[in-house]
């Protein structure tokens, strides 16, 4: 079947199997390999993408389910060639080690900041609870999200 949707701002039309997972269509058919697969069971969050602004596990969603919707993946985050505020804070604050959880973390954080302008540490922890990281101990990630939120809110 044919899938039509918007990915990172661009209209996409692609042939898919009715039972194809969204993650496979993104990574294989569309070569958007920034979205990672760490568990295929909705537990690690490495595959997180945004559908109409909501963070979801792309390993748990049928590609067919995003017909007509708007998707944001890690490839759509950077502004032009440069890092956006979240990415920059992740880079500067040691929130990235092996980097495998990073795309998913960034997408969950993006969804949070779209919903809540200046989240508390607790809100950040909760929003990221579905994104596992084995390298960083989370704290630098949480700090990076908080710092990015502050930056985006601008001077009070």
């Amino acid at each position, binding site marked *: 079947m044919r899938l039509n949707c918007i990915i990172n701002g661009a209209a996409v039309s692609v042939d898919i199997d009715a039972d194809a997972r969204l993650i496979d269509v993104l990574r294989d058919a569309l070569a958007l390999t920034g979205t990672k697969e*760490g568990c*295929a069971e909705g537990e690690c969050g490495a595959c997180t993408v945004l559908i109409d602004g909501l963070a979801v596990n792309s390993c748990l969603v049928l590609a067919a389910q995003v017909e007509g919707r708007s998707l944001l993946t*890690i490839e759509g985050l950077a502004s032009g060639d440069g890092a956006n505020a979240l990415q920059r804070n992740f880079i500067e604050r040691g929130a990235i*080690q092996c980097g495998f959880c990073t795309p998913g973390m960034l997408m969950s954080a993006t969804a949070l900041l779209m919903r809540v302008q200046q989240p508390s540490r607790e809100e950040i922890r*909760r929003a990221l*609870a579905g994104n596992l990281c084995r390298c960083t101990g989370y704290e630098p990630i949480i700090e990076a999200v908080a710092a990015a939120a502050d930056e985006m809110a601008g001077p009070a």
Partner: protein
Amino acid sequence: MAAFKYVGLSPPCPDAFAKASGELRYATDLRLAGMSYACLLTSPHAHARIDSIDARRALQVSGVIGVYSHEDAPATRYCRYRIVPGQAGCVDDESLFAVTARFVGDRIAAVVATSPQAAREGVRRIEVGYTPLPAVLSAETALEPDAAHIHAGGNLLHRFDHATGDAPVAPADAVRTCTRVSTQMLHHAAIEPHTCLANFDASGRLTVWSPCQSVYGARTVVADLLGLAYNKVRIVKVPMGGSFGGKQEFILEPVTAYLAMRTGRPVCLTLDREACIRSTMVRAQQRSDVRSTVGADGLILDLEVDTLLAAGAYASSSPDYSEAMAHKLTRLYRVGRYHHRGRVAYTNTPVAGGMRGWGAPDIATCAEIHLDQVASRLGLDPLEIRLRNLVHPGDIDPLTGHSVGEAWVRRCLARGAEAFGWRERVGLPAGTGRIRRAVGLACGAHKNGIFSDAFPEATTMTLKMNEDGSLDLNASIHEVGAGSAVTLQTIIAEELDVAPQMISTREADSESTPYDFGCFGSRLTYFCGAAARALAAKMRARLIEAAAELLAVASENLCAAGGRVVPLGGGDSGLSYAQIVQAARMRYARDMIVTHTHRGTSNPGSYCVQFAEVEVDVLTGLVRVNEVLTVVDIGRAINRQMVEGQCRGAIQSGIGSALCEEVTIDGAGRTGAGGFKNYHLINAADMPPVRVLLVEHDGDEGPYGAKSVGEIAVVPTAATIVNAVNRALGTRLATLPLTPDRILAALGDRAPSGSREPACG
């Protein structure tokens, strides 16, 4: 303390933006023309003879290219852990595909297909006839006289007996204590699943792309197994989404390489999470009886450990791993006599192998839980008993005869106790309500590199300076995500006084980067860092020598500073590095390239001390860790942020091993279904705030005093948490993990038989 220009700062890793933008290509992101996908069929039985393999239905699946099993693969046995040919302690007991299934998850067959879906479907359709054999699921049962043999030589894979010193005559008021501590099978849980890609081209060359920790080690294992000359096998280290030791051994490289050879196509093999847990390797299940005689003054007079470790179905690194456990405590404490006996048994369970800390967390967990029990019997503060026994800088480890080096563990403990407020907090009551609160601490020791009397420590690196003064480091770097590249960059930058960004690095490639054993054994910063420093010093000497000729002055009167070679007394008459490179080439036909082979001659202790506060809900048995303080005898932090990052990540892993991580098996040897659904990592919501203190000093052979961090940082964590829980509850829990079930069982008489803490054997 010398002033540094780059050392101790925190520049991000060179590939950080590529990671943050999704551009970095990990192994699973690589696509080759004609790529095919492999899927493994693994044994559903813990122990079974394979009578037949019928692949006909699998071959009918559209897209399936071939089905492979022991029926056509070489029967050659190999050791997945071997780094160098002929390595002592390696047992060749594993083959590409099992003839006898030895654990649930053992490789039986592989399907190669044009899509992962077809490969999976093919695997479902293979019919295997098994004759189940009696299975032994624990080291205890494996060593019973009538236990079924897992390998021809019997189940006792390895044993050792190390003793040193004489126990002083124990005074009458000395206490003798024995604790049985059990640690569980753990999954490394790198978020990137195990994966490998291989291609065998028409010219007969095999290329393997693998997120591995030793391209040269992988090369010898793969080439020997497949009968290829070493120069026909190229192993390329690709970006790695975490390892923690789980990707140190060569688990997927041999089988993927074989499948590529057989099919003549690029083959990608990626395991799902369940298979990563079951079919790669785990940290060994072990139990140790720790017996001590401790004087009323708290001095450890005698320490005896008896370890029984389950190796799983194949030897892998278990013999060496168990030996490593015996070599930690004598570099942590001064003990009158130390005696460690160990036995390692084959079991029909997932293969045990190296994991972050390599035996050090295992033995520290045992000894530190024990020591808290001793302290409580003596009425001593846990801090005090440790202060009275910890090693001092320059002590000789009686087991090896080598110095523990600049062992500043006592300072770590003192500084940590102060920063944590230990003395004020240790006496606070735990409370009597639903929530009990208490603090705990533990110490740990590990090593710095692989130098020993039995194994050399060496590496070779090349540094080339370009016409613009930029540099290319050619070294077999295996970046595991911990900052190897930026660490080496920083050291070279410091030595040559150029910005770290001026130095390019590359990852290991057995075809083009010089020999190195690999990234393991806590050797990167301490040893490879020292090599990089010496390499950069060589380059500096060469630059100065060329500048001296060009300027017609004596080289003793020149020095390198700010990317230039300048007269010692200052002045601006020097030459920039770029000028030197250009002029040396044009005038003397000389290249600014240096190669250095570095040799290690020491292996001092690395140390870490941790403090934690926990809250235990006595109704649900759930533990909440409120805060952790970790203090590391780092010597020198080359990249402060990376060092802290290692410390924080280690705490996440260590808390998990104390409380909730466990690869469980049922009575039939099956690991629980599901991957991360049943293997619980600490997530962001449950991760406590962590404070990191670094104790810095000069000394040892590491660059600027630097020592290792990635492994040592996890060593005391589990014991710290367990000690805090025991203090909060007044229990003596010593079987890990401290699940809510175990905690509640220990709290009351509600224990079903068998769940009480077992006594020493």
